[in-house]
């Protein structure tokens, strides 16, 4: 799944030796990947961009903890996930939000039904459903379904036993299924 990028390790060694500039290519290389994973958990562009920046700063400060020779992306994505979870806890993003409230928050094309395609409506519904999902369920769904990470990897990132990954993932899927049903996502499914 992850390839060890030899270039990454050379750059990381330079950063460890005090060459701050060597961190620049690493940021450029992984910023979009981190943007995607964080956006899926946060669902907001501005907050995601800020969080990506914070994750890179945190990674720089903790670069000495990175074991040379290992692939860099799993390490920094772990930093990103944990940083985002802390953010979600802090911002109480997991608070229950009624569907009607979500409709006001999320972009709506009700005023222009002609342009409102079925696909766009579906994506809007999915975003609404994910926003309604409690943050720990949301995180594990992102890691497993959208990031396609194996259970063991999720277990390491979230620092929970494999059995907990299995049970939490099962509950998350059940919850999401209920929300989909509630907001009638299947009516727009392709």
């Amino acid at each position, binding site marked *: 799944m992850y390839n060890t990028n030899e270039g990454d390790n050379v750059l990381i060694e330079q950063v460890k030796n005090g060459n701050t500039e060597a961190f620049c290519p690493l940021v450029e290389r992984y910023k979009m990947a981190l943007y995607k994973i964080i956006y899926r958990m946060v669902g907001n562009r501005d907050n995601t961009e800020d969080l990506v920046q914070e994750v890179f700063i945190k990674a720089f400060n903790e670069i000495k903890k990175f074991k040379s020779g290992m692939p860099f992306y799993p390490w920094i994505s772990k930093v990103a996930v944990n940083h985002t979870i802390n953010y979600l806890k802090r911002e109480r993003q997991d608070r229950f939000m009624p569907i009607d409230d979500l409709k006001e928050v999320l972009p709506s094309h009700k005023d222009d039904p002609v342009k409102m395609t079925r696909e766009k409506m579906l994506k809007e519904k999915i975003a609404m459903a994910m926003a309604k999902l409690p943050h720990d369920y949301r995180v594990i769904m992102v890691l497993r379904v959208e990031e396609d990470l194996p259970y063991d990897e999720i277990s390491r990132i979230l620092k929970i036993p494999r059995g907990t990954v299995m049970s939490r993932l*099962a509950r998350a899927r*059940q919850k999401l299924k209920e929300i989909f049903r509630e907001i009638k996502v299947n009516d727009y499914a392709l």
Partner: protein
Amino acid sequence: MRCDLSIELLNAYLDNELDEKQKLFVENHLRECPSCRAELEELKSCDHILKQREIEEPTNKFHLGFENRVLDKVREKTRPAWVWRLSPILVPIASAALVIFVVLTNREKTQPMVGVDELIPYTPTKTARPADDLSAAAIPKPDREKIEQSGRIAEAGELKELPAKKAEVANEEKAPVALSKSLPPSLPAAGLTTTTAPVATPMPVVRKDRDEELLTGDGMARTQAIMTELNIPKNKVVRAIVDSTGRVVKVATGNTIQPEEDKQLEEQLEGQQLAPRSAAGRKQNLMYLDLTQQADIDSSLPDTLNTEK
């Protein structure tokens, strides 16, 4: 209604996280259980829908210059965390240290401490005029130039090697008279005679240009008379602190870095103008005047001066 197959197992089967034995067990069950098959299809559909989620494009700001902004932040934060934590303590300490430094620096300028830089060359006296003669005429030109270049009393020893100069100086007898006129009336006549010794005080050679700046021998003569009256040994180091007007504000004895105050001598000399105003063009508020008599110099002077005693 679903059967009793664990929902976790069904999810793990969907995620292909089961070993062969568990996988075979679930597949056998699914063949016989339509409810679990339906549940599995729902879960698959759920994942399928979720994978269609759209990700909003990042802003242009994220694409352009993001790396440099991260590096800027990183450089900002390279300052050790303990500095931030201790800053509430360090800032007052640094401020206090600065204040103390400023106070001490200013104090140093005005503190009456003995220092070579502040030492004023002793004023020539009228009784020392023979020295002028020495420098001007009696000393051979090469020697005179040598002395004038140095301009210091330290070279006075060279005078010993100039017998001709001694003879010239010996003829000068006006000095005691001049001193006697300048002494305060309170001083006894006997004191007048004793003041002849400082005639040879160590500044016989003074450059002409400076000569006019400095006071004439009145102040020095008074000083020497008082010192003699108080039986202050000739070799005892005596220094006076004078203000910018040249008046004595303090007198101390001893050659240590912090000499002892001499109240008795100070009472006699306090307020007397022994040095010129702004001596040597210096701007210091306080300066030092070395009043020490040097016996070895005295002995090198003409006997006639000493015999005035």
